[in-house]
């Protein structure tokens, strides 16, 4: 009678264990790395119908964010500017530039420019711009260095963990309200003092953001 198991079978359990260990860890690492918003969202850069550059308008020309996103201090929603806002200037400069053909068409016909939305929280999340902007939280914390972007790119994960990190420790991010749209501002402030003086208490209970 021959042996039922060949000799190499002695190490098989070990090999299976090592193999399973490797595969399980790789799968775990893959899920952790790839299936979170840090991967799925960050870097999303849709192609926009017009090559509008924040680097030119915000950084080079120094236009304040609120010239275009004029509702950001008043409303939960930060509006994308109407084509008439572009035409304020572009009826004077680059009047006949082909890059702006769509803006002129939209201005004349009243049909909206089909900008592609970049940032969006799920519909079950309650988000509000004005509470943040009027409490000294700058655009840069949630949108990155928009003023240096040729195309708008999703720079932060905007996941629940991301929101809560700041709601637990706003003193690290807070700054004087008039500097909110100065994305390059790097000065130092006494965050603890501001949080205390303005009585800033970002909610952490579920109903703050899920209502």
């Amino acid at each position, binding site marked *: 009678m021959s042996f039922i198991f060949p000799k190499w079978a002695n190490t098989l359990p070990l*090999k299976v264990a090592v*193999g399973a260990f*490797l*595969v399980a860890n*790789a799968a775990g690492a*893959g899920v952790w*790395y*790839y*299936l979170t*918003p*840090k*991967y*799925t*969202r*960050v*870097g*999303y*850069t*849709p*192609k926009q119908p017009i090559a509008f550059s924040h680097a030119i308008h915000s950084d080079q*020309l*120094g*236009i*304040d964010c*609120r*010239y275009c996103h*004029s509702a950001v201090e008043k409303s939960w*929603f930060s*509006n*994308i500017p*109407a084509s*008439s*806002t572009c*035409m*304020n*200037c572009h*009826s*004077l*400069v680059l009047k006949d530039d082909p890059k702006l053909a769509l803006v002129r068409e939209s201005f004349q016909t*009243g*049909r*909206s420019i089909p900008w592609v*939305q970049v940032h969006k929280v*799920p*519909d*079950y999340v309650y988000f509000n711009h004005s509470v943040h902007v009027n409490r000294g939280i700058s655009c840069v914390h949630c949108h990155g260095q928009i003023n240096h972007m040729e195309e708008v*790119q*999703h720079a932060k994960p905007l996941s629940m963990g991301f929101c809560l990190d700041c709601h637990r420790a706003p003193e690290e991010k807070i700054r004087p309200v*008039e500097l909110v749209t100065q994305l390059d501002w790097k000065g130092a402030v006494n965050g603890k003092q501001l949080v205390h003086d303005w009585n800033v208490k970002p909610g952490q209970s579920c109903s703050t953001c899920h209502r």
Partner: protein
Amino acid sequence: MRYFLTLFVLAVIGVVSALGFRGDKSRKPPRMAEIFPDLNIQPKLRPQTVTKFDGFADGASSRVYPVGTVAQKVGFLDNTTWEDTAINTGRDAKGFVDSNPVPVTSELLKRGQERFNIYCQPCHGAQGDSAGGIVKKLGATSVANLQDQRIVRMNDGEIFNTISYGKNTMMGYAGQVPVSDRWAIIVYVRALQLSRLGAKDDVPAPVLEKLK
């Protein structure tokens, strides 16, 4: 085992090269929502999006007023003033009002400074003299100089009208600048003009000493 390890390494390399790294630029919309829709996309309308609702023929979720709509109580601060009062139009029965109907305070002036620097400075420059205005730099010669005697002598009401509805090649700012801020901006424009109009005699003697 060797085959397994080679396959394993190849698989890892394959996945990483196909999926890339965190933060890589990507043109495709984030996928998560489509695999598990959950409550991510609810049948409610968000501003500035597209809708298939039949009632909205142009397909826009943000609506504009129907043609001919007349607002009754709009405008200043608490929405209780009638639309055709001087504070909302810059006019009274006799024409453009002479001076600002809003009480001038230092807060109003501060607010005006902030708003001027957001909405007017790009063209008219930080001093209102249109030097440094970006549009002028690029060859648009028509931007008015707010330090001009003509505008110094202009009624507040007429400037209000210019901000609201524009003038010649300047377009109106009614959509971006609410009524209260328009009056605040006018206060600041007046302050800018005063800063250039001052004479030596206006400076108190002790300060004048120090300036020399």
